[in-house]
């Protein structure tokens, strides 16, 4: 009897100790060995960034020339005003524009500059006087009677960061300062819409976050045409010679790129890097048959057939790109002798002045007719030196369009100075920097938030230390970029936004984040049950047996008591 009691005791102790070992040692061990390594991510900061509040601020200096303000009004200057505009875009994104306007009167040297005969010369001498920092503007209000601007032009936009605004006659008429300012505000506002950031551009730049934004047709076309912000671009210039038997073409592409394109790219270097190469393709046909127009005595390609030109050519264009950067292709096509001259017509059957066309997010093609180079008795092959200035002029215009530099048509009454030698005005660069910074910040925040969401949802992905580090640095750069935008430091904001985007893309596209570990629940059970069930069943049964014995004993004790 005693032995069975001892045996039973022993059995119970054994079962209990096994259960204790399984629970205390086994379960934590299994948990630790099957968990995936997940480095810590700053999730709370990421969630904060998900609600993007962008504050853009621009500094404007309004200079009143002599003859636009009365002496009493002059006494109140210099005066600083701040204007805030709130634009909620959607529930996650809100924009606030701040304009810090400083009003003052013109200095003597500025007055001298404004007395120059033409607006272009005035602009030239004005910006030798002072250098406006990145992102700021100077608007000179000149009297209505001034002869600087032609008749129907109210605003002249210079090549740097200055504009000349023609004042109204009523401005002077003995009003108070507030009324004067109220009169001049709309004009300045219009200038700001053209030269600085405007709502349409900024909301287009936010297209990554705010997907279905029905903007105007022009803004949709603009956003479709320009390349998205990228840390680098590859530009390829190709010369297509379908008829080497008739034409021996010489183009000084290196010199032309050095003279005409490099200044623009150097100016754009804070925005992104560029790499250029060039090639010549022989026997490359266009792939569409041009029609001979007897009226013009030339061959014509109309706009509908242009769409089918690019694909056959693209298959033959080599690419030197060793990176994943977007490629811009600029093709110069010299038609063969049997199809010269070749003219491009638009939908309205009118000739294109530049004889060139471009495709959004791809590049441009220019047709260069050489039949004017034939002498009286042409002996084929004819040696032809291509006029690179004309060609590069067209390519530069197309490059500006494709990079998003070109603005849409200015409002009436505006006269914009023609492109400088570099092909890019300072205020255009500022606009590009504004929209690129906003675009980078928007893209980086969406990337980081979707990455955090993804990693949260899928518990099986391993998060390595380097990914966590990239995410943290992206978050820091984003916070700095937003702060710099608010402070109005455009250069720093762009730099931080570029860093943020690089870090966030690196983290998101890290090859180790591939989720191949999709286990449906029934598969998980199917794996664990054959391992654990045979082990757990005896333990559970013995535990149950111990419990039932205890209960019986307790009942007996109760019965004995009673």
């Amino acid at each position, binding site marked *: 009897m005693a032995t069975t009691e001892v045996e039973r005791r022993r059995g119970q102790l054994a079962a209990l100790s096994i259960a204790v070992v399984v629970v205390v040692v086994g379960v934590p061990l299994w948990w630790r060995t099957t968990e995936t390594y997940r480095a810590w991510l700053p999730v709370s900061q990421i969630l904060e960034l998900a609600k993007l509040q962008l504050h853009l601020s621009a500094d404007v200096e309004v200079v009143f020339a002599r003859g636009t303000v009365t002496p009493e009004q002059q006494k109140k200057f210099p005066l600083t005003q701040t204007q805030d505009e709130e634009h909620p875009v959607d529930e996650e994104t809100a924009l606030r524009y701040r304009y810090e306007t400083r009003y003052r009167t013109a200095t003597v040297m500025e007055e001298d500059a404004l007395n120059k005969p033409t607006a272009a010369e005035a602009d030239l001498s004005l910006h030798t006087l002072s250098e406006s920092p990145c992102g700021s503007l100077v608007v000179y209000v000149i009297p209505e009677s001034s002869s600087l601007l032609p008749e129907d032009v109210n605003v002249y936009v210079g090549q740097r960061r200055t504009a000349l605004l023609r004042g109204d006659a009523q401005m002077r008429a003995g009003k108070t300062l507030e009324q004067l300012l109220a009169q001049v505000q709309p004009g300045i506002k219009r200038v700001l819409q053209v030269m600085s950031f405007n709502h349409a551009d900024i909301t287009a730049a936010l297209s990554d976050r705010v997907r279905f934004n029905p903007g105007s*047709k022009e803004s949709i076309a603009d956003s479709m045409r320009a390349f998205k912000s990228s840390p680098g671009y590859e530009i390829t210039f190709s010369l297509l010679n379908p008829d080497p038997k008739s034409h021996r073409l010489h183009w000084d592409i290196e010199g032309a790129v050095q003279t005409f394109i490099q200044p623009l790219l150097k100016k754009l270097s804070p925005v992104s890097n560029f790499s250029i190469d060039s090639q010549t393709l022989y026997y490359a046909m266009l792939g569409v048959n041009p029609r001979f127009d007897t009226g013009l005595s030339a061959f014509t390609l109309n706009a509908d057939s242009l769409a089918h030109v690019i694909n056959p050519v693209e298959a033959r264009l080599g*690419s030197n790109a060793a990176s994943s950067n977007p490629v811009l292709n600029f093709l110069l096509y010299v038609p063969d002798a049997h199809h010269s001259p070749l003219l491009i017509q638009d939908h309205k059957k009118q000739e294109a002045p530049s004889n060139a066309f471009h495709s959004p997010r791809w590049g441009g093609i220019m047709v260069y007719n050489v039949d004017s180079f034939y002498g009286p008795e042409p002996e084929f092959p004819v040696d032809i030196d291509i006029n690179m200035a004309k060609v590069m002029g*067209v390519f530069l215009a197309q490059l500006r369009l494709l990079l998003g530099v070109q603005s849409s048509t200015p409002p009436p009454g505006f006269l914009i100075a023609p492109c400088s030698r570099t092909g890019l005005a300072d205020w255009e660069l500022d606009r590009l920097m504004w929209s690129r910074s906003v675009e980078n910040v928007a893209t980086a925040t969406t990337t980081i938030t979707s990455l955090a969401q993804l990693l949260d949802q899928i518990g099986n992905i391993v998060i390595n230390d380097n990914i966590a580090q990239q995410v943290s640095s992206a978050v820091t750069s984003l916070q700095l970029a937003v702060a710099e935008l608010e402070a109005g430091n455009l250069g720093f904001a762009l730099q931080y936004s570029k860093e943020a985007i690089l870090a966030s893309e690196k983290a998101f596209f890290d090859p180790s984040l591939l989720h191949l570990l*999709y286990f449906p629940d029934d598969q998980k059970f199917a794996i664990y049950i054959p391992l654990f069930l045979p082990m757990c069943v005896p333990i559970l049964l013995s535990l149950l047996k111990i419990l039932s014995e205890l209960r019986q004993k307790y009942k007996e004790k109760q019965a004995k008591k009673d």
Partner: protein
Amino acid sequence: MKILTLLSFFATHPLTNSINLEEQTAQFFSSGHTNNWAVLVCTSRFWFNYRHVANTLSVYRSVKRLGIPDSHIVLMLADDMACNHRNPKPATVFSHKNMELNVYGDDVEVDYRGYEVTVENFLRVLTGRLPPSTPRSKRLLSDDRSNILIYLTGHGGNGFLKFQDSEEISNVELADAFEQMWQKRRYNELLFIIDTCQGASMYERFYSPNLMALASSQVGEDSLSHQPDLAIGVHLMDRYTFYLLEFLEDIHPASKSNMNDLFKVCPKSQCVSTPGHRTDLFLRDPGSVLITDFFGSVRKIEITMEAVNLTGPVQAVEESPVTGEANKELYSYVDQLPVSEIIHQKPKQRDWHPPDGFILGLWSLILLVFFKTYGMKHLKHIF
């Protein structure tokens, strides 16, 4: 009376002309895409799955014919048909009975071949999570204005697709991959075509916007193959893809057929299975979506109106004397494999190594058996 009708005819003509113009400008904005990509995957290998490779190659041909360049096509094939030992016509893959159309050739650019066609690589291509050393041709470099065509064919089941007889991709994984593409704005619109058994189960779980899906059969049905070729000995194509290709042969780059025509391809009478499609996640009306929006690559064109006025001479690029010499070096090919040296080589003298474990074990086994059989007394003869 006649003059009146004539006049009215002439009056409406310019009206329709301007409406035409409006339509054309509207076309620019209607589709919202600027480039096209195609990801064509054949998930089977082995000779008896000839038809899957022929399916994929035929779609590849059509897509190339309609304009998408090789640089924008990611083709994943096991590529073991053309040079298979059992192929009576080597270096060919036929897609039509009586060997009418050879879809293989020297301009077929296969990006992932053989054992590289795995679920992991497929998902990596879709989500973009490739190692940095991957070349451009193996990447899907799409942006937010790309329309992507994805074509999958092989053996499938309810909710999964078998890859190369060793692994499978589930519909949940595919839906998650598309969601990750959407999050990173890697597509504008996506057309998903699948030609497998129970193909409709693969698009059941999609939840990202702007996806349109077509499948060759519903859940519970099998997709059948089309015609066997008696000379080659295998079925050459699947029914759905065969009729799909017949439909695509009528499409040229300027055609205006829309998706509703594509949904009618291969009715039950021809296909035996019921093709299905899913358009609820797609924002535009399928009737306004052109076939060439996905299968072709029609570029949008704008005439360049202005040119920058550039003057001045072109500066010659100065060659600094230091780099001048470096530029003059001629490039030459690396020495190819020195075949003549190799074949006339004497065999190398290899160092002597003591016999390894296997030989030792074998000899000890032989000795053991010998002594067991004939007795230990023979041992003294050896030692």
